[in-house]
């Protein structure tokens, strides 16, 4: 039983606490002995201090066991901390009884300290052990007093109370009975209260765990919600846009009617057209507001130069372009560092730069190929590499790929609909940002574009 489970660990903490408390009790007893000596009470100090020294010795060994987790010596109580505690409390009873015997027995007002031990065992031990141990302790005290009265063992007469008090049987029985009742009650009470507190502690620990789990659930739900919210804004934007185009056309057509371009309109028809235009105008305002709203939410102002979070821009582009890649069963992979320095440019700059490169790579890669984006950071500089397993660019065409409208014959054969503008836009953006772009290619094997951009874009 090497692993310490919760409750057992709790008992070990109790032992540590009890050991510290015992040091204080021993120190208190030494002070009391000194006070007795000053008061010239006839207490024999050598045995008194001897008992305390023994107590100190076993306490030191307990402390050592505690600190080394009971590994320093073979201990039969290893793995049974409750037994260990019971043993300790029993030893304390022995010490207390010996000290009382040496210092006047029943005459000593500190017999009340038995209640302290009873309370202690109640706090530390299960109910039955605590009450049993306390009862045994008090009975032992009773036996000791009886033995003193019967002169079986010696008695130290303190001379504080009436002489021979310890010989009065009714008195001794009364003290023993009262002590027994008090000690048992105190033990039972403390044990019950401690147990209840322990259980309550257990409950609050469990509650805390549940709370922790609930918090984790909530924060992951929050993340999902935020993602959903982003998607919603994007959807809103697209939907508003789709609604806006036909509405604008309707309004243009109605306007030509109102203005007489579609022939003579009589008064009644003109009123109806005006009403219809009023409604269309309402809808157009709504669409316009929706678009502004979704745009503000996304923080997209494509033409304004701002510090751009390159990583999230790249993530967005990759997400979009994955659709095209999937259509051709092309693997689109990305290796992005944890952090990418921002670029000071427009959203449009970043977007057209990387979107064109990735889109081109996908466009000129045959089905089942792969396209990868790798970004490395060097200080504030960003090194991006876009590689594909595509058709490649013939060596004689490499110089011209950044020229406007230029499309190599291989490119034209492979894919229709290319404008020949993508790479020239890329080149312009890279130049604007004060960066550099290189291309390496092998026909039939693939192409790699290497882009270097100074972080915080220097393009002013």
């Amino acid at each position, binding site marked *: 039983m090497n692993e310490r489970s919760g409750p057992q660990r709790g008992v070990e903490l109790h032992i540590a606490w009890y050991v510290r408390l015992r040091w204080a009790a021993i120190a208190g007893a030494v002070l009391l002995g000194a006070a007795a000596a000053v008061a010239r009470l006839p207490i024999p100090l050598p045995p008194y201090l001897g008992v305390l020294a023994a107590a100190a010795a076993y306490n030191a060994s307990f402390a050592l066991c505690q600190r080394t987790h009971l590994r320093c010596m073979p201990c039969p109580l290893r793995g049974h901390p409750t037994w260990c505690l019971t043993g300790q409390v029993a030893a304390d009873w022995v010490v207390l009884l010996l000290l009382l015997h040496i210092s006047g027995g029943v005459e000593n007002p500190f017999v009340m300290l038995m209640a302290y031990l009873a309370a202690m065992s109640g706090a530390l031990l299960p109910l039955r052990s605590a009450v049993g141990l306390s009862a045994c302790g008090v009975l032992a005290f009773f036996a000791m007093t009886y033995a003193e009265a019967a002169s079986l063992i010696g008695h130290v007469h303190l001379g504080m109370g009436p002489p021979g008090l310890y010989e009065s049987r009714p008195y001794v029985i009364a003290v023993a009975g009262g002590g027994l009742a008090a000690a048992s009650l105190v033990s039972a009470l403390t044990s019950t209260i401690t147990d209840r507190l322990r259980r309550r502690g257990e409950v609050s620990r469990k509650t805390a765990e549940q709370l922790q789990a609930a918090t984790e659930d909530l924060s992951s739900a929050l993340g999902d919600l935020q993602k959903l919210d982003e998607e919603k804004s994007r959807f809103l934007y697209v939907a508003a846009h789709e609604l806006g185009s036909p509405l*604008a056309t309707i309004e243009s057509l109605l306007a030509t009617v109102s203005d007489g371009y579609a022939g003579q309109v009589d008064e009644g028809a003109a009123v109806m057209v005006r009403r219809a235009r009023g409604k269309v105008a309402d809808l157009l305002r709504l669409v316009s507001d929706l678009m502004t709203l979704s745009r503000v939410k996304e923080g997209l102002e494509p033409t304004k130069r701002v510090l751009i979070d390159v990583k999230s821009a790249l993530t967005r582009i990759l997400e979009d372009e994955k659709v095209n890649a999937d259509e051709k069963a092309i693997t689109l992979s990305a290796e992005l560092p944890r952090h990418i320095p921002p670029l000071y440019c427009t959203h449009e700059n970043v977007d057209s730069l990387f979107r064109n490169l990735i889109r081109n790579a996908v466009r000129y890669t045959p089905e089942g190929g792969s396209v990868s984006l790798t970004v490395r950071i060097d200080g504030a500089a960003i090194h991006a590499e876009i590689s594909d397993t595509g058709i490649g660019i013939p060596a004689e065409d490499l110089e011209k790929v950044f020229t406007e409208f230029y499309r190599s014959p291989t490119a034209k054969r492979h894919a229709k609909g290319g*404008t020949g503008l993508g790479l020239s836009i890329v080149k312009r953006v890279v130049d604007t940002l004060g960066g550099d772009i290189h291309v390496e290619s092998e026909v039939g094997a693939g192409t790699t574009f290497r882009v270097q951009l100074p972080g915080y874009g220097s393009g002013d």
Partner: protein
Amino acid sequence: MAKRILIADDDPDAVAAVRVVLEANGYEVDSADSGEQALERIAVAKPDALILDVMMDTLDDGFQTCWKIKNAPETKDLPILMLTGVGQETGLEFQPNDEFLPADDYAEKPLQPDDLLARVKKLLGE
């Protein structure tokens, strides 16, 4: 001789709305429903001005068509009025990045007939 205006828009109803206004004001109107077709019509019919929808097939189409026209020596002087979608305020979203999209004028749809005429006249330097 009547000035020739080319309208490039993939929505035939939108073309009709512009066409009726321009024709009534004495312009000759030609139309194209894609960027590619617009380029062909420009080569063949030599229009005096182009009204270009920003979003034909894709958002890129209008921009790229504009870009191609303005960057080809034989067509770079063709004046272009670019029409943007609803809520895409020219000043906000499609403010031309001078390096990339040098259209001559931008207007948000829907365009009122009088406004359209005024812009076309300005485009033609009338």
